[in-house]
């Protein structure tokens, strides 16, 4: 097990002996007067202020990068009100307070648009494909080409659904969803709303706003719902 690492260590040890003479005790070199002046002094900024500077002004991100929805990298990084509030909640490490939660719930509920024909379950087979797929909207070094595939819902990443595939555990298990809850109009409306914008019920949840952010179409949401509710769906077997 030790047959490879020692050689490099021996070399490092030798190098160490050769060069330690030129080092300070801590290895930390004192700043010189000749150092190039920084354009902005990071140490004068509050952490959050510096974080925002780094995102938008340090040249770190490709802010002009085109996105699949026709915006730019800068738009992707610009926070809306909900993202700002929920970042602070996450940063605090505490549970969200009731008043803030209520405000987020209301704000989220106001974003929900319902299908014109009412909430009717779609095709559970299509819903299964959507629930499984993690394709879509990725950019960075390898942008997803939406002409080559339909964006998915990423549901399986966080939820266990049918027993035939291993799902994640970031969110609760949804196995047997319709079987347990039935499919009353109230139940369907609730599920539609949770998929469309989960913050309407769970303020600052980790779950994406698939409808409100245009990640899934209304029809795709109805297909995913069929996967959850249809008695023929593997979720309910």
């Amino acid at each position, binding site marked *: 097990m030790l047959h490879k690492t020692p050689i490099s260590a021996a070399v490092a040890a030798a190098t160490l002996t050769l060069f330690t003479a030129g080092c300070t005790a801590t290895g930390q070199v004192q700043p010189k007067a000749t150092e190039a002046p920084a354009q902005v002094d*990071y140490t004068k900024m509050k952490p959050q202020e510096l974080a925002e500077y780094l995102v938008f002004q340090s040249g770190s*991100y490709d802010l002009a990068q085109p996105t699949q929805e026709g915006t730019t990298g800068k738009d992707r990084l610009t926070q809306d009100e909900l993202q700002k509030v929920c970042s602070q909640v996450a940063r605090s490490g505490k549970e969200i307070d009731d008043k803030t939660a209520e405000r987020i719930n209301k704000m989220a509920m106001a974003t929900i648009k319902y299908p014109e024909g009412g909430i009717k379950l779609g095709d559970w087979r299509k819903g299964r494909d959507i629930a499984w797929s993690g394709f879509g909207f990725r950019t*960075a070094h390898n942008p997803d080409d939406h002409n080559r595939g339909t964006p998915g819902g990423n549901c399986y990443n966080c939820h266990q659904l049918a027993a035939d595939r291993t799902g994640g555990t970031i969110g609760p298990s949804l196995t047997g969803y319709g079987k347990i809850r039935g499919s009353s109009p109230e139940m369907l409306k609730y599920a539609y709303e949770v998929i469309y914008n989960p913050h309407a019920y769970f303020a600052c949840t980790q779950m994406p706003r698939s409808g409100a952010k245009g990640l899934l179409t209304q029809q795709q949401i109805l297909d995913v719902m069929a996967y959850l509710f249809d008695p023929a769906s593997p979720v309910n077997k």
Partner: protein
Amino acid sequence: MIKKALCALPLALALVSTTSTAKAPEDILDELAAKSKSPYLTQSPQNRMMMPDNPAYDIAAEGEQLFKQKRGPKNASLEQCDFGKGPGVLKGAYVELPRYFSDTGKVMDFESRLVYCMKTLQGYTDNDPQIRQRHGNTDIMKLTTYIAMQSNGMPWNPPMNHPLEKAMRDAGEELFYRRAGPMDFNCATCHTNPSGTRIRASVLPNIKIPEEWTKAISWPAYRVGHEAVRSSQHRVLECLWQMRYPNLKPDSDVNIALISFWTDRARGQPAILPDMKR
């Protein structure tokens, strides 16, 4: 070939080796796993079994040659590169990065410092493939693997003496919790869940559990699924891709701030270098 040659070297060499190599990476992992009972640390017995024959060792051997070879327009080796503990000192340097460097007036992570040395000592520029090609079977990954290994088993200990080091770490913490993008993700979405939480079948590491976090940040690691050694900056980039964020430039301050914060959170825990990941 190189691997076989190395294996054939007498055991005597092992005896003169110092404490950093007293434990192999897999032994460090085993001790962390025994101590914490973390499902993240024990999720892949297959990877654990392969660690003694980690392909990263072959890549490191190539890196050692590159490090000592006179190369570039200035025909110089990297043996005078100062990674923070003095010119040429590699032992323990990797676990004390990112840090402030007075010659650039900046906090630099390992990769940005390596690139700085390749430019200043060897004369390479941004247009040269030696600098431009970061990920995959590249010079930078070979050098990274060789140099990082000299800190195997040592506790992460990025200095926080200079005000800029603190500023970058603290900004990194803000970035870690900053939700953005069409899916509202931050780093915390995946890295603050209870131990054992999975994304699909993969157990996620939690930044608040130090034994998990040291493995999470132990890059370079050979990624079996990629058939390549990957770096810290590659991990940042892949996370941002999944998070639906725009492209992040190599060596940028967002990279360095995030890596400053994440290294600080593994402080005191032994580095597993090189690691093997899925």
